[in-house]
């Protein structure tokens, strides 16, 4: 493949943002149309990734690799069945998020669009990067636009929320950076060359004592991002204060970066430590499920209700990831996509209501469905998708997750089912109070029915919800090989470890390359020291 599609998809939004710098800020409609078309173009290009993706290939695909800074730091992109869908989710939601802010954002439209586009590049880079350094760069870069989006276009307590968001995330990622340094230096000691290529690092068998520390550093960074209980406190603030489009991207995609980090880095790099930590992490995930659900029940603000529902849903995804079996992992990845769609859609629905009444409190609503019947139907579908109604996407993911969790631990699975019950309770109750009942607030009588633009960004999501609910095989098929590989890798490293019992050196062994595609092996640079 000669055309670097993956780079094109990743950097197209950045190119658009650079172009925007030179367009006068007064031409807001031109800017909006351009931003939307660039985002759509990125989506179309990413569809090429989907259609050209080879289901059976084991290694990463669409690989691009060039030297960059030396010392094992390369520009190295590539996707497998896990990151493919997260990239698609991002490019799919971005145009919709831009559409949703068409009239909601009135001030400084130019800067707003620039930051949204930069954010997209940052997120796509995180999912596409195969070099740990590159991954870290994108991981941090993405913070800056999000910081501005919440801080400038957010609600009343936006500055507090955005600072908290940045500082929390950075706390985790800086400690992860130290762990990356450590991996970098021990790889050099063991192999004699520098590399931060994740496939090279995957081959290392580390001393379990050291794995514990490294796993802790990586896991903290990812757990904050997911967020897992008790690191979730930034999330409700950030969600509630962010502008609608910001919340959509935050909930739908940003949170997935944490889960993706566990799948891609923390678990396969440090399988022995992971094995020791997993029960505890599982308990935290379970607490997250129940705590998030209970908190969602008592929220007065619709947005923070959806935010806490994210904590609960992400808890289930994490629990499934920690179960480490085929069904659970596929379910987790599928559920990541579902959660992206359904929570994104719920935030969009809240945004539609907020644009009309400028309040997010549940008690200010009631009887909206009489004024907006079409919207009521769409809102209901989104809500039911989040609850996990059979026929919609959420059901498939949750069932797979719960099957997988049940295989590894019956008790956890039984307790985890509470996520469905709780979700049904808080979402249906919220829906009933907002959409049904008598109209108490006079403002609601003047609510305009749903606009075409609003339909344009809700309908694609709803269609996807049905599609993913009825034909899950379209998507699951492409994940199979990658998930099998991932599990295989984790287990193989554990079994190799069992043959060793020396605990003195940092690195016990580097697995000889088996079963890894020749094209994924980098020509490593020789260390310069």
């Amino acid at each position, binding site marked *: 493949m000669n055309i670097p599609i993956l780079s094109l998809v990743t950097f197209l939004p950045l190119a658009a943002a650079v172009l925007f710098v030179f367009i006068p800020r007064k031409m807001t409609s031109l800017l909006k149309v351009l931003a939307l078309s660039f985002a759509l173009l990125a989506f179309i290009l990413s569809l090429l990734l989907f259609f050209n993706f080879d289901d059976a290939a084991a290694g990463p695909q669409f690989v691009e690799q060039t030297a960059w800074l030396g010392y094992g730091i390369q520009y190295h992109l590539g996707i497998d069945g896990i990151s493919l869908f997260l990239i698609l989710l991002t490019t799919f939601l971005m145009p919709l998020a831009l559409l949703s802010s068409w009239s909601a954002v009135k001030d400084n439209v130019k800067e707003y669009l620039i930051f949204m586009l930069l954010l997209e590049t940052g997120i796509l880079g995180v999912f596409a990067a195969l070099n740990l350094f590159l991954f870290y760069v994108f991981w941090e*870069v993405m913070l*800056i636009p999000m910081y501005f989006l919440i801080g400038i276009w957010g609600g009343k307590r936006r500055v507090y929320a955005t600072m908290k968001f940045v500082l929390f995330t*950075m706390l985790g990622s800086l400690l992860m*950076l130290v762990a990356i*340094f450590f991996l970098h230096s021990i790889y050099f000691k063991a192999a004699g060359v520098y590399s931060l290529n994740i496939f090279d690092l995957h081959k290392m068998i580390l001393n379990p004592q050291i794995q514990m520390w490294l796993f802790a550093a990586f896991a903290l960074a990812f757990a904050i991002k997911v967020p897992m209980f008790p690191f979730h406190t930034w999330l409700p603030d950030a969600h509630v204060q962010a502008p609608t489009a910001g919340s959509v991207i935050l909930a739908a995609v940003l949170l997935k970066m944490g889960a993706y980090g566990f799948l891609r880095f923390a678990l396969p790099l440090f399988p022995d430590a992971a094995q020791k930590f997993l029960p505890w992490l599982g308990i935290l995930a379970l607490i997250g499920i129940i705590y998030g659900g209970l908190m969602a029940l008592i929220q007065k603000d619709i947005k923070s209700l959806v935010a806490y529902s994210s904590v609960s849903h992400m808890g289930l995804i994490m629990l499934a990831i920690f179960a480490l079996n085929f069904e659970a992992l596929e379910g987790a990845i599928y559920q990541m996509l579902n959660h992206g769609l359904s929570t994104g859609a719920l935030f969009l629905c809240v945004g539609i209501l907020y644009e009309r009444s400028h309040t997010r409190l549940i008690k200010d609503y009631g009887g909206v469905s009489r004024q907006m019947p079409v919207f009521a139907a769409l809102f209901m579908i989104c809500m039911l998708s989040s609850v996990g109604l059979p026929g919609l996407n959420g059901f498939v993911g949750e069932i797979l997750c719960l099957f997988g969790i049940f295989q590894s631990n019956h008790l956890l699975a039984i307790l985890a089912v509470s996520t469905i019950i709780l979700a049904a309770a808080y979402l249906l109750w919220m829906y009933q109070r907002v959409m049904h009942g008598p109209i108490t607030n006079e403002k609601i009588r003047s609510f305009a029915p749903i606009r075409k633009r609003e339909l344009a960004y809700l309908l694609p999501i709803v269609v996807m919800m049905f599609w993913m609910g009825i034909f899950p095989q379209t998507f699951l098929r492409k994940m199979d090989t990658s998930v099998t590989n991932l599990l295989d890798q984790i287990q193989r490293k554990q079994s190799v470890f069992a043959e060793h019992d020396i605990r003195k050196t940092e690195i016990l062994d580097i697995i000889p390359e088996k079963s890894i595609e020749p094209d994924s092996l980098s020509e490593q640079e020789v260390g310069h020291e």
Partner: protein
Amino acid sequence: MNDIMALLPLSIPLAGALATMLLEVFLKRRDKSYLAYLSVVFLLANILVSLRFWGKDYTYFSGILHWDDPSLVFSMLLNLATVFVVLISMRYIGQQDANHGEFYSLLLFALTGALIMVSTADLLVVFLGLEVLSISSYALAGMKRNDDRSSEAAVKYFLLGSFASAFLVYGIALLYGAFRTTGLLEILQGFQSASGSLWMALLGLGFVLIGFGFKIALVPFHMWTPDVYQGAPTPVTAFFSVVPKAVGFAVLLRLFRPDWPGLLDSPITAAILWGLAILTMVGGNLLALRQSDVKRILAYSSIAHAGYLLVAILARDAASLMFYLIVYLFMNVGAFSAIIVMSRSGHEYTELDDYAGIGFRYPWLGACFAVFLFSLAGFPPTGGFLAKFYVFAAGVREGLIPLVVIAVLASLISVYYYLRIIVVMYMRPASPNLVIDLENSALYLVLFLCLYGVLRMGLFPGNILLFIKQAALAFTML
């Protein structure tokens, strides 16, 4: 190669200093900008000379003056910093009622002192250079003659600086007493062979460290920094934040040579440096949290950066130290230039609240300042991130993991106060009487160059990195 040419990089700025001083007296022109252009020509010529010297190892005065590759890197860095400072002060000096001729010649004198320090292999000559640098600096700090703060800064800097110099001389004397030499290499050999009185030598080394601790503002010798940085004219502050620091680390690099097994391996010196680094990183960043004056925030931030640089010394990595200093030059001068853009006739706007709403009122200025602040905080894809990355990675490679963990946590603290400035710039409404001078092309040139430097160093530092690595070979163990 022993050659009188070796004097060239020192005599060019000296000639420039004398020329600007004399020309100002005899050419009574109203428009003084020609002095600035003249200085820039001299400085650029000097950078060119440094480039021509590359790899030639010129020495003179029986080896006391030695232009090896690392000192040439430092020389170029110092010259470039001075070019930037000259350019950003062109309009500023007139606005703030300071005297042109003296200003440029003092700057060039200070630079000469700094160049003496980076190119010598003898501690006594280091002291000589330091005095040339310091005395010019004291005068520069007080350039705003009618401003109390500026005079206070000058006096404070002078008093504490003299103290520091006294410590340094005393330290050199003790080292001489122990080893009968003031040559840097001979002193290191002395430590290695433990030929003289080791306790006297260690005491001397401690005093030398205290002297330099003052100059490069390490905690607990940092007390003068915020006041001097705040009171001095802003371009001079930019100069102070880069030049003495770079020079100080150049000397420390020769004292704690990465390729020399002696000093860094001794538990006493290592412990002292660890302590200083931790205090400086944590202290500098914590103290910056409560400040409301942008110049003071940057003063404390420069203290914290000295702490990160100390990590590079401890990590025995000359290349990452030099890279950090180059990036630091761009981001710090850039940040101070953004402050100068805000200044107007007779007044400087340095309170945080003065910056409210700049981000949208003047998007280019806001964006530049924000990029510099992000770089100082160490966000990718700016040079500040890569600089920290190399230093901390070197630290971990050397096994200084606890130190690096403290360093990253300290830089997390710093994120808070850098972002505070950005919060004010972007997330507060602009005050209606916010007007800036848009016709200061020299200043905008510097802003642009610094922006380019910061981004270039963060994304494609390729050639510069090679250059630095080649220079660092001088410090590599064979």
